[in-house]
């Protein structure tokens, strides 16, 4: 499945999470952010996005919200302000990495 963001055709899953992080760029991030209702990406947003991508490349999975709060330099409370409702999922989507594994 593919989708077009900022003029680039990229691989996505059925919920719109990118499957190949190497297809991502900052224009794509801005467009996905607007799709999910975040109109502006501030420096703090970018700090989280960069951490998410680094961590994904290193560990092969998206971090949990607690790891994100401890290791990204942005406290959980602020994460909820930057990426309302579900920071771990929203930040993953904007960062162009696959959806964090769900749990039952």
């Amino acid at each position: 499945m593919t989708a077009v963001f900022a003029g680039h055709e990229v691989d996505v899953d059925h919920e719109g999470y990118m499957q190949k992080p190497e297809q991502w760029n900052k224009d794509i991030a801005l467009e996905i952010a607007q799709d999910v209702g975040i109109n502006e990406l501030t420096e703090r947003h970018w700090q989280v996005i960069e951490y998410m991508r680094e961590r994904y490349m290193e560990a092969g999975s998206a971090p949990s919200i607690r790891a994100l709060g401890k290791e990204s330099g942005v406290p959980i409370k602020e994460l909820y302000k930057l990426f309302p409702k579900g920071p771990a999922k929203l930040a993953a989507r904007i960062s162009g990495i696959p959806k964090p594994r769900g749990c039952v």
Partner: protein
Amino acid sequence: MILGAGTAGTIMANRLRSLYKPEIRAGDVAITIVDQDNQHVYQPGLLFIPFGTYDREDTVAPRKRYVPKEVEYLVDEIHHVEPDEDRVYLKSGRTLEYDVLVIATGTRLAPEETEGLLGEGWQEKMFEFYTLEGATALAHKLESWEGGRLVVNIVDMPIKCPIAPLEFVFLADDFFDRKGIRDRVDITLVTPLDGAFTRPLAAKALGDLLVQKNVNLVSDFSAGEVDGPTGKLVSWDDRTVEFDLLVSIPLHVGADYVGRSPGLGDDMNFVLTDQETLQSKRKPNIFVLGDATDVPTSKAGSVAHFEAEVLEENIRRFFDGEALEAGFDGHANCFIETGRNKAVLLDFSYDVEPLPGKFPFAGVGPLDLLKETRRNHWGKLAFKWVYWNMLMPGRDLPGVTTRLSMRGKKRGDLPMLERHAVQGGAPQSTKSDDEAANVA
């Protein structure tokens, strides 16, 4: 070498003992199991302690009683595992070498991860019921509590037995009703999920039951902090739920030693595990089952039972140099106590939703799936006997298959789920007039 003598580890010890009986006698195979203590808690029984139905006597037995005598039982704490050396380092300073390692060290509660939870008011107006001590303390509190706002909060997923918080509110409704104070108790379930349960169809059925039993549901709530003295539960996005009595299901994490073992676990200390073969992703001679894994199915004893059958076969294949069988399908099976001597039964897997129908025999049952009946309740109580006498010794259960069976299930036009797309469900709210009307 088996780490952990809980439900999963004990079942594995019994199965491997049976599989390798002649080799053990000949001295070619040796099985060791390590646990930090000798107290086995029948965890499904903890739910009944706060309401005075069960007590300590009903739920505790020595671990050693259920471990076969041919298996060496070591009491020690694990410091860490060195996968590259095939060695387990114990806190006593001892090291143990293994050819095959089975990790079954489960999950522990981490109430310290929620600010304020262990602060003023802990075990006075804030409780948990996932440990024997916690459930017992809550039983004392409920004996004399005269009513007010009872809030049951799931801090985060995953948790052991994900339906236990629902059962707790159903049993609480029944308990206060029998005490004659139900009208003085306001019960609210506060969950990070977007409905009553992780799976959409069951979320709808269970959401309807919440409405029937007059239990409020607050969903999409990620608890960030608790203030005992003022009785406030606050979410990360600054929503507040007030309580007089809080029953928390704290954050669950894997065993601490997993975090000290290079490359073994994720950032919650759950062990990185292939969801079909149950082999560790770190090294081929490490296998994992029960609550310790990161596989996306329920953390429950029934799951450990189904996993053990697959794992026994895969350990045999590993020793015999054969390819592993991708045999685990995420099969879970659970009774949900709904109060007033009734229960609901769920049977599901990675790919198949809990569906209505009969279980385990098509048309006959005797148990009804996804439906509230008395017979399911008696099934749940009988399960205590089944647990100690059939599950722990690693016996197969009559009519119950390792892989989820579609026998007796009414599929209708219900969709099979895409793998991993397991979160979600229709939001349930007890405040919706439409849904209340549907129930009526």
